[in-house]
């Protein structure tokens, strides 16, 4: 059999790659389950590299903040004494430390408020693609994390875990275009589906035409999607546009500042169900009768 002409090698390769991708996409779209093995393997490799890269960047930042930047300040302010520079630097470090402590305290407060079994995790990387809004956590399967576990910040819902490796996990943020959660307008108890717009905002769809919604209304999780527990704050209604009797678009501003996430709380397991109420025991004397 004649071998394919080497001049057309690129075309054959391109054709094979396109067909391979189409088959891969078809398999996932038809089964809705996807090839978890390939995805998990890719994710495990890349998140480990992301974690390492963030460690390097953190080191460089530490060196820059603590040494290079300080040298720059000294050069600009030669007349300032070294003591004053040291004190200022120390003050900055203290402030940064206080900021981190505040964040951790808020997380601990949240942990006490949520009845679920939880674990705290650090954000080690952002999204590797501008088309997806995700973060990588420094905890994974070893720490009990599993796909579809909800992730929270002290102010509200962050997203859900989509992929888990041994020591890292990828979280799909609620503002991602593929993300959705069952939501409810707290004031009017109107239910709908909250979806990510991909631009940092959310929208709520599938609302009743008679629903009453106003700007500033708080949107919380409805608890009917089997992922997010009921009553967690998602955001506030920013803009309501009506087209006749129906809602054209309801834009929600999330309460979580997704660009400033450093530590988050992962909900591992729901609280144990309350024991069923026992019928009141009759008094001993009555029982004897």
């Amino acid at each position, binding site marked *: 059999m004649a071998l394919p002409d080497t001049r057309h*090698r*690129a075309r054959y*390769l*391109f054709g094979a*790659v*396109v067909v391979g*991708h*189409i088959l*891969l*996409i078809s398999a*996932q*779209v038809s089964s809705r389950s*996807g*090839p978890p093995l*390939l*995805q998990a393997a*890719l*994710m495990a490799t*890349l*998140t480990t*590299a*992301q974690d390492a*890269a*963030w460690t390097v*960047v953190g080191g460089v930042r530490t060196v820059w903040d603590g040494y290079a930047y300080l040298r720059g300040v000294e050069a600009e302010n030669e007349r300032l004494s070294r003591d004053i520079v040291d004190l200022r630097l120390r003050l900055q470090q203290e402030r940064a430390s206080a900021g981190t402590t505040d964040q951790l305290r808020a997380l601990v407060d949240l942990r006490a408020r949520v009845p679920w079994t939880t674990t705290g995790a650090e*954000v*080690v*990387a*952002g*999204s*590797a*693609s*501008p*088309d*997806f*809004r*995700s*973060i*990588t956590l420094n905890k994974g399967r070893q720490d009990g994390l599993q796909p579809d576990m909800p992730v929270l910040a002290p102010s509200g819902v962050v997203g859900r875990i*989509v*992929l888990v490796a041994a020591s890292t996990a*990828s979280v*799909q943020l609620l503002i*991602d*275009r*593929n993300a959705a959660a069952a939501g409810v307008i707290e004031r009017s108890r109107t239910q709908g589906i909250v*979806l990510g*717009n*991909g*631009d*940092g905002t959310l929208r709520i769809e599938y609302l009743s035409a008679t629903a009453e919604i106003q700007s500033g209304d708080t949107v919380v999780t409805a608890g009917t999607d089997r992922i997010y527990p009921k009553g967690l704050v998602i955001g506030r209604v920013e803009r309501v546009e009506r087209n006749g009797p129906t809602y054209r678009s309801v834009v929600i501003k999330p309460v979580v500042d*997704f*660009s*400033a996430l450093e530590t988050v709380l992962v909900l591992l397991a729901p609280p144990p169900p309350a024991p069923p109420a026992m019928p009141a025991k009759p008094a001993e004397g009555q029982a004897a009768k």
Partner: protein
Amino acid sequence: MTAVRVVAAVVVALLLQSVLARLAGEAAIHVDLVLVAVTWVALRFGRVSGVLGGTLAGLAQDALGGGVLGIGGLAKSVSGYLTGIVGTQFIVTQTVPRFLVFLGATAVNALIFMGLYVLLGLRHYDRPYLDVAIQGLSNAVIGVLVFEGAELLPGARERWRIRRAYRGKRRFR
């Protein structure tokens, strides 16, 4: 050796993009460093490298983002292949043609990526033109700078080596 360079370029771009997203937050959605790397690879090493680099980069982004595995891969493979063809059929050595190639690669990538998601009914885009235009311009500026930097680097190293050798000679006179 080319394969190693292609993989290295893609991996470095992936790591830089995730670090950028962590540091810059919302602003990071206006640049796709991974697409810049794929386009650079396709222009520098040809369409085969463009296809393979695009496949690797796109699949990695799909896996990390939790999207449908293959959509990003297909978009970036096609983008890399077409860029490779443009690189071999036309002279793309000046700043303006390179700028246009990066702009075009962003448009092709966005068209396939968004188109497939919308066709499959998995995503909704209100007005993506402005976002794509901004990302195209950012990618083009960064891509041109990457090319300029990559071309200046060997010359700068050579000049530094010559200067060092000259200083050494003067010291021994």
